[in-house]
């Protein structure tokens, strides 16, 4: 079994770490969470009935991250803007900065980090990790329709945060 575990689960280590890192913010905490999630995964592996091992692992990582947040940062679970991270500087960017893709992704990173946990999560899974609606639904345990609507709201929020919404009026 460890051989199978190694082949099916370990290849998704980057995905696991990326998700945990986005959910909890700190590299050290993310490492602890991934380690705990792997131990859980190892314990539950007997119950894994094949299928999408990435979604299966990410679900465990997600649950572990949420337990951690509930315990250590309960305020984050309230759906509100994190004003401490969102410093408002995003609206003053000039045209030059737009040309620099590094500056752009930095801007996006800040905007993402400032989003409430549930919005950040669905965007990371969809846009950064590239999961389908079905996979996101497996990871987060919500129905596909709910995935669609929360993704939609998350996109709106991110765009508000980026201050680009004004570009699209006609």
């Amino acid at each position, binding site marked *: 079994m*460890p051989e199978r575990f190694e082949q099916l689960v370990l290849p998704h280590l980057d995905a696991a770490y990326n998700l945990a890192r986005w959910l909890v913010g700190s590299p050290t905490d993310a490492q602890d969470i991934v380690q705990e999630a792997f131990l859980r995964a190892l314990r539950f592996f007997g119950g894994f009935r094949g299928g999408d091992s990435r979604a299966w692992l990410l679900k465990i990582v997600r649950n572990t991250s949420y337990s951690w947040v509930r315990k250590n940062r309960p305020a984050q679970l309230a759906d509100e803007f994190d004003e401490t991270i969102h410093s408002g500087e995003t609206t003053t960017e000039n045209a030059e900065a737009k040309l620099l893709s590094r500056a752009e992704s930095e801007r996006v990173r800040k905007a993402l980090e400032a989003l409430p946990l549930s919005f950040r999560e669905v965007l990371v899974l969809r846009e950064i990790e590239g999961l389908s609606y079905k996979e996101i639904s497996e990871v987060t345990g919500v129905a596909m329709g709910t995935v669609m609507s929360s993704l939609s709201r998350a996109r709106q929020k991110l765009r508000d945060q980026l201050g680009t919404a004004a570009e699209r009026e006609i």
Partner: protein
Amino acid sequence: MDCTLHRHLLEAYLDGELGFERTLEVEAHLASCRICSSEVQSWKDIRAEMQAPELYHRAPEELENKLRKLLPQGRTERTPWFQRWIWAGGGAAFATTVLLMSLMIMRPAAPSPEQDIVTSHVRSLMADHLMDVVSTDQHTVKPWFDGKLDFAPPVQDFAADGYPLAGGRLDYLENRKVAVLIYHRALHIINLYVWPAQDNGSFTMRVQTIHGYNVVSWKKGGFEFRAVSDLNTAELRDLAQLFMP
């Protein structure tokens, strides 16, 4: 502002979640609706930024090492061969094992070329330069590489397993010539990049998704392999599995 297209439909289109007919419908609409097409473009721009490599947190090497050490002590029925060796063998066996393990644990050296590989994959599909040699016969494809490369890539046809070989191509990555084998899986195209590894170690598969393409990496028998496709990760991994019986 009299656009009637449902916003959810537009997003499902963006996410590639619509069926064939619906996709055509939305595309027809986009061609005539400025509001929706700029909406789609604006999100595609944000998406491109979100997929910048700086925003993807790769697992630190130390974490992988730590997890591998935890692995054999789990509640498992079978002990992996290397641990059985440690208990069974003496000093020499132990030394060999340590060496083997350190090789196994080793990650691919240098910055990962996955990003370049995805770009190369997309280019191969766009520029109509997918194959230099078109053949489903491994005995045609393999000799074709002779004299064009300074190594002989392992060429195998897996038609019986549902991954027929379609041909080969030369490509250029990380300042060296690499072999590319093209496989089909139903309607999907898989580009498999092969080049000599720095050493003889092997590492287990890694799976990444870059710009919506899945990349499975592995190292085996002195070669680095990167399989890229829009195929799902499970089936792409199955192909990798065929290379390491």
